[in-house]
Each structure stands twice: as structure tokens, then as C-alpha cells.
């Protein structure tokens, strides 16, 4: 049962990232300096957090296209809150961000659960609505660095044990999701609902409710990232993270999370996000024109999905005894 001990897909993706790093190092050795790798990780942290939320949603056979809009709306809301009440402590800001994000996720979830509207339609709609609301509440205006309090912008970049808080948040999220997916009833139900929804009903799992919870989780993480994003780049406006939802889905796909549901892992999602993060950070450094970036990440997605499909193709059951023996 070697295949059980070594998760093949994750290993290969990890190897691909290593190969990529070596390739970059051959042109620019500074890139693989530990300090820079930490930078790359820090820069990829938002993508990692969002990819984990998206992973949960995709595992239940849904998709959440509204994450980036949710992020932007939460980011704007907390930025405006900070401007209005500069004294508000950061834990409160974070709680508000997570709560607001979760509420938006819950709206998606309820529409999927109670009205049984296909997730792609729901989140396509709420994506537009959330973005529009940002414009309405902000009147289209930016919230700039000097308007935000130092505590607000300082939190994600504060360094603890050599790592910025942003990175720590990503690590913590990975740890929590790692435990949740493997060690809690909810985590296992998420796999069950995506793997075989009919059977899930037989085992007493409320499929709609699990999907709802998946959207709430994804929304909460989007909200959290909204605060981190706005604080880190010290600016909030309507279009922040525009189109980021597709990058998040791409990270999941590259990480081997099956769009058909039920198959995937926390490690995969993280590696998928890191893969994109490394490419994104490396291009400017190794002097490849940034105009190449889009085409390169597009090709990476295609190669990854083709590869995952090949390796994931379940060997059909084998009837012939002789064939089984030679397997």
C-alpha cells in the first residue's frame, strides 16, 4: 500500500515547485535565498488562505466565484470602519472581517442550500452584487494609507520569530484546515458529500447543510483575507483583487482538487497556491517580461489539469484474473 503512504500528487507537485526553484536559481541565485523564499511565501499567503476556502467549496461539488468580491467588500468595510473609529482594536477588526465574510458566504450558501440554485450562478450573481456594494458604500473613493491607523496597517507586517504575521495567519489557517479536514466530522462529511452525495444522504449527512457550511467557511476566509490584503497594501478601493477568484480556482486545480468534487487535500491546495506564487514572484526577478506571466500561468493550469486527470484516472475494476495478477 505504498500509494497510501506517499500522496503521489502532492509529491509530484512539490517536486515541480523544487524544480522550478532550481531553474530560477540557475538564472538568479538570490531568489532561493531563505529571506527571499520567506518573502515569496508571505506574498502568496492570501492566495493560500483563499485556496483553502475554495478547496472546501470545490470538494462539495460547488464553486465560489465571489471570493475576490467578498474580500474586496470586507476590506473596504473594515478600512472604512478603521477610518471612522481609529481606536478600534485589531482583534475586533479581525472579528468583524471574518464575520462579514462569513455572512456573505452564508448568503451564497443559503441560496445554494434552500433554493437549490446552481453555485456557479449564485456566486456569479453575488460577485457582481458585492463589487457594486463596495462602490455604493465607498462612493467609489479610495481609502489611503495615511487615513488608516498604524495598528491597522501594521498588524500583517509585524514580525514574530522572523516571519510576518501575514505568513503566520496563513500557517495557522493551514494547520486548522489540516486538522478540520482529517480529524473532524465536518471535514469528513465534506469529502463524503462531494464523493457520493446520494450515499451521504444514507449515512445521515445533510448534503445541503454541508454545502452551506463550506460556503460559510470560504466566505469567512475571504473576509479575513480582505482585512489582511487591505492592511498589507495599505489601500482599499473597488477593484482590489479583481479577477483573483480565477487565480484561486487555478491554485486549487493545480493542487489536484477535482472540480467534480470529493478528491483533494489541504497539502495540494497549499502547493498549488505556492506554485502560482513562485511563478508570479519569479518573473520580475529573472527578467522575463511580465507580459509572459499570463500565458505561463495559463499553460501551468492546462498542464496540471491534464496531468492530474492522467494520474487520477481510477483504474477500472479488473475482472480478468490474469490481468489482475500482472498488475
Amino acid at each position: 500500500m505504498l500509494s497510501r503512504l506517499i500522496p503521489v500528487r502532492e509529491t509530484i507537485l512539490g517536486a515541480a515547485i523544487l524544480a522550478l526553484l532550481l531553474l530560477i536559481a540557475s538564472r538568479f541565485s538570490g531568489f532561493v535565498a531563505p529571506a527571499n523564499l520567506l518573502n515569496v511565501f508571505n506574498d502568496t499567503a492570501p492566495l493560500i488562505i483563499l485556496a483553502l476556502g475554495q478547496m472546501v467549496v470545490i470538494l462539495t461539488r460547488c464553486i465560489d466565484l465571489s471570493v475576490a468580491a467578498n474580500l474586496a467588500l470586507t476590506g473596504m468595510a473594515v478600512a472604512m470602519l478603521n477610518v471612522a473609529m481609529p481606536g478600534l482594536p485589531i482583534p475586533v477588526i479581525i472579528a468583524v472581517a471574518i464575520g462579514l465574510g462569513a455572512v456573505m458566504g452564508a448568503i451564497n450558501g443559503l441560496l445554494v442550500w434552500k433554493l437549490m440554485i446552481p453555485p456557479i450562478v449564485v456566486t456569479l450573481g453575488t460577485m457582481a452584487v458585492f463589487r457594486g456594494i463596495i462602490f455604493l458604500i465607498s462612493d467609489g473613493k479610495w481609502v489611503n494609507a495615511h487615513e488608516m491607523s498604524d495598528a491597522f496597517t501594521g498588524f500583517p507586517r509585524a514580525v514574530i520569530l522572523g516571519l510576518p504575521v501575514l505568513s503566520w495567519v496563513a500557517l495557522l489557517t493551514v494547520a486548522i484546515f489540516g486538522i478540520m479536514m482529517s480529524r473532524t466530522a465536518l471535514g469528513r462529511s465534506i469529502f463524503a458529500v462531494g464523493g457520493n452525495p446520494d450515499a451521504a444522504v444514507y449515512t445521515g449527512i445533510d448534503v445541503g447543510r454541508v454545502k452551506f457550511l463550506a460556503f460559510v467557511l470560504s466566505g469567512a476566509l475571504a473576509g479575513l483575507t480582505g482585512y489582511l490584503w487591505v492592511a498589507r497594501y495599505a489601500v482599499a478601493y473597488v477593484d482590489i483583487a479583481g479577477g483573483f477568484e480565477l487565480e484561486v480556482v487555478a491554485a486549487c486545480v493545480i493542487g489536484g482538487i477535482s472540480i467534480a468534487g470529493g478528491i483533494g487535500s489541504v497539502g495540494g491546495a497549499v502547493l498549488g497556491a505556492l506554485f502560482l506564487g513562485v511563478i508570479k514572484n519569479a518573473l520580475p526577478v529573472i527578467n522575463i517580461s511580465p507580459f509572459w506571466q499570463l500565458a505561463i500561468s495559463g499553460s501551468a493550469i492546462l498542464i496540471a489539469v491534464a496531468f492530474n486527470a492522467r494520474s487520477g484516472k481510477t483504474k477500472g475494476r479488473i475482472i480478468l484474473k490474469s490481468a489482475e495478477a500482472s498488475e
Partner: protein
Amino acid sequence: MTDGSTPPRFIPDRLRTRKTRILHSWEILLLAVAIAIFVINSLASPYFLNAWNLSDATFNFTEKAMIAFAMALLIISGEIDLSVAAIIALASTAMGFAAQYGAGTPELVAIGLVVGLLCGVFNAIFVTILGLPSIVVTIGTMSLFRGISYIVLGDEAFRGYPASFAWFGQGYLFWVFTVELALFAVIAVIYGVLLHKTNFGRAIYAIGNNPTAALFSGIRVQRVKFILFLLTGLMSGVAAICLTSRLGSTRPSIAQGMELEVVTMVVLGGVSILGGSGSIPGVVIAAFVMGLVTFGLGLLNVPGIVMSIFIGLLLIGVIALPRLWTMAAAKRGRT
């Protein structure tokens, strides 16, 4: 099993007449919405009821709708293509490139169509031959196609299209009727006939409802899907010609984000995103609804982002309201 002694049981062809079927259809609901928006618009703005303005308003949807017709067929068959806007970018870039070398209008049109077609084939190969999920493949090709445009163009732009090329996006056939509107109408009819009146259209519905059973019924499922991706690419090529002609220039960011508007239009037109049902008249009306909403709000100088709230709510609302209605009715019936 008929033993001859008893005559066979009679089964009527249809239970409901054509009229009742049409009256209960999604298209009628949507048409009512369209008329309501039209009335609201003419009340809200004094500039709305003007032939030239209405003619200009059609540009808000004609190019998107051309793609939406092909996309409708694709979605009914259970697939999706998110790379259409990127195909526009690539096709437009190719046309611009050719124009630099003095290609004339016929050549440019041919290039636009061929590049669209090739992109469609590229998607089709991944989906039908390698058997990968189309949503993922086209998210990938969406980056790839537009990425190639960026590689070719960088921060440059192609301009200097021949004067006669402007006919597609800026020309008028007679009075206020634009070339694009005419193209839209012709394409709508072609796709309407293809979907509703041919064996091919029937196959699309069968595949969308149950691809396995369709395969077991002798339908060449992969071939049909291949053709549908190809058609969607082709229509993106047509839209690229119109848009490029209308803008008179090409930049890699052309048509950014249009794929989601196209999908929105298709879904608003009553096509099930899960495949298997939908109609071309529905998409036509949805195109007008979206065009009217954006134009009407534009006349009131409402920013585009706020318009998208309306579109988003419309999208969820038109699906949610009938369901809420039946749920409420069921509840009332039970108690």
C-alpha cells in the same frame, strides 16, 4: 404484446396546446421583464425613446449576444467556455498583426474567423479528446490566449486598420440599423434553427440531459461537443471582428471580463447552467434585457459597477423568485 383482440391504448401526442405551452414559458416571463424595463426607461429618461439612441444602445449587447448563442448551445450540452473573451483578444491581435503587413479587409476577416476557430479547436481537444472538465480547461486557456496577446503586444497597440474594415463595427445598413444588429439577427436565426429544428440540436439536448444515455443511443457525443467548442470559438472570432472594427485598435486588454457577461446573458435567457434545457429566443430576450438595463441606467449616468448589481440581482432573482413562489405555494397547500 398486443394480442390483436384489444385495440392498443391511445396516447395523445400532446396534453397542452401550443398556446398554453408558450404562455407558461420562461421566455414570456422574461419578455414581460424586458417590456417593463423598456417602459421604466422611457419614463425615467427623456432621451430614451429616440431611434438613434436605441440604435446606439444595441452595441451594449450585440457582440456579447453573438457569442452567447454559441455559448447557449455549449451550456445546454453540459459544457462551458470561459475563454471566449480571451479568444477575442487573440483573434484581434492576430488581425492587428496582419493589418501591420497590409492585409486587406477580406484577409482580416478570414484571419479573425480562423483564429477563433483554432482556439475553439484547442479547447475542444482538451475537453473532448483528453476528457478534461471544460470549466478548468477554459480557465487555463483564458489565461493562455490573452497571455499570448500580451506577449505579442506588450504595452503596444495595433491600429491602422484599413478604412473599409470599420464597416463591421461602425457601419449602418440602412437608417439606424447597424451592421452589427443585422449580424446579431442573422446569427440568432441560424442558431435558433440549429438548436430547435435540426437533429444536431436534438442531440445537444440529449447530451445535456444524459450524456451516457445519449452515447448509448448512438449519438457521437464527443464529436458534437467538439463542434460546439469550435462554433463558440468561431463566434468569438466574429465578435472579435466587430469589436476590433468598432474600436479601430487592438490592445491585449480588449474585451476583458466579457466571458462572465456572456454566461450571465445565457443563464438569464433561461438556459440551465447544469445543461439540458434552454432556448435561443430566451437568450435573444435576455440580450435585450441586459442591453436595456445597462443603457437605461447609463442614461441616468449610473456607474457601470452599480449596473452590475442590477444584473447580479436579476440573475439570482429570476431563478430564485419562481422557486420561492412554488415553495410558498406548497407550504400554503400543506397547512
